[in-house]
């Protein structure tokens, strides 16, 4: 059976998920053979390859995908590198794009179009966030915990309480282990930071842009 005819939605959904992991979420190393054997075991490799390229092309695009000669046959490159992710289509555009793909020679079936449409709608947000995270090369703030200690000194007379805030910041670069930074702040420093943070807040309000 040809890959295109096998359409229960599970294998294709699995494939799209794997492609998304590979392309958007920075988890490379998903091989073609692994995908084929797990999701489309009845499909021979030489048939699976162009099918995979086709799906990758629709999802992510990118120059040259599907352009290689496969066993002497040129795989069809459609839509001039247009793809769902790079064009970031809204839902109407998505439907139109997928419908067009179903009408092309060597395109997709309408069942496949339905699976892709459903997949993209649910993954769009995840993919966007992933792209944001991957493009942040600095550490991100992963967590913050704190406690306040009341350091007290007393010998004979009045106890002197100097409260100290201990803050643990969990920082980490994309794909790397967290590092923990443990900081001590006295009251003066806490207030100093608060003042700075309100300056930042003011800047944020005055910067005109789309909300996150």
């Amino acid at each position, binding site marked *: 059976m040809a890959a295109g005819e096998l359409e229960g939605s599970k294998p294709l959904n699995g494939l799209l998920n794997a492609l998304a992991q590979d392309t958007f979420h920075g988890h490379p190393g998903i091989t073609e053979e692994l995908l084929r054997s797990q999701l489309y075991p009845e499909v021979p490799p030489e048939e699976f390859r162009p099918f995979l390229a086709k799906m990758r092309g629709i999802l992510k695009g990118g120059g040259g995908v599907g352009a290689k000669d496969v066993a002497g046959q040129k795989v069809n490159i459609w839509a001039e590198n247009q793809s769902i992710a790079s064009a970031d289509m809204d839902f109407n555009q998505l439907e139109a794009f997928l419908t067009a793909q179903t009408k092309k020679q060597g395109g997709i079936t309408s069942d496949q179009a339905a699976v892709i449409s459903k997949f993209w709608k649910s993954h769009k947000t995840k993919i966007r966030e992933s792209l944001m995270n991957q493009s942040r090369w600095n550490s991100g703030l992963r967590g913050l915990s704190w406690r306040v200690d009341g350091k007290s000194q007393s010998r004979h007379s009045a106890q002197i309480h100097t409260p100290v805030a201990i803050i643990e910041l969990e920082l980490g670069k994309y794909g790397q282990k967290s590092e923990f930074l443990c900081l001590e702040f006295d009251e003066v420093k806490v207030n100093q930071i*608060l003042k700075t943070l309100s300056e930042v807040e003011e800047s944020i309000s005055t910067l005109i842009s789309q909300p996150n």
Partner: protein
Amino acid sequence: MEESSELPLDAKSEFVDFQWKLGLAVSCDGCRSLKLEGWPYRYVAVMLKVADHSGQVKTKSFEMTVPQFQNFDRRFKEIAAVIETM
């Protein structure tokens, strides 16, 4: 209101300074379309100066999204409120 955490005493650094900048990420490799929802997005980049137990000053930098920053701000306000009661 206080949250406890396991903090080894010798790992503490003293906070020295907090520098910041507000950035706007407009595009990136892999997201060519400017229409990607949520882009351009604002972020707060922070440069912390801390002094370790030997007095040596180090810097640590990190980024926060705006919601993360607002949470960060909220936490500090909580801390200030607790300190004030002491």
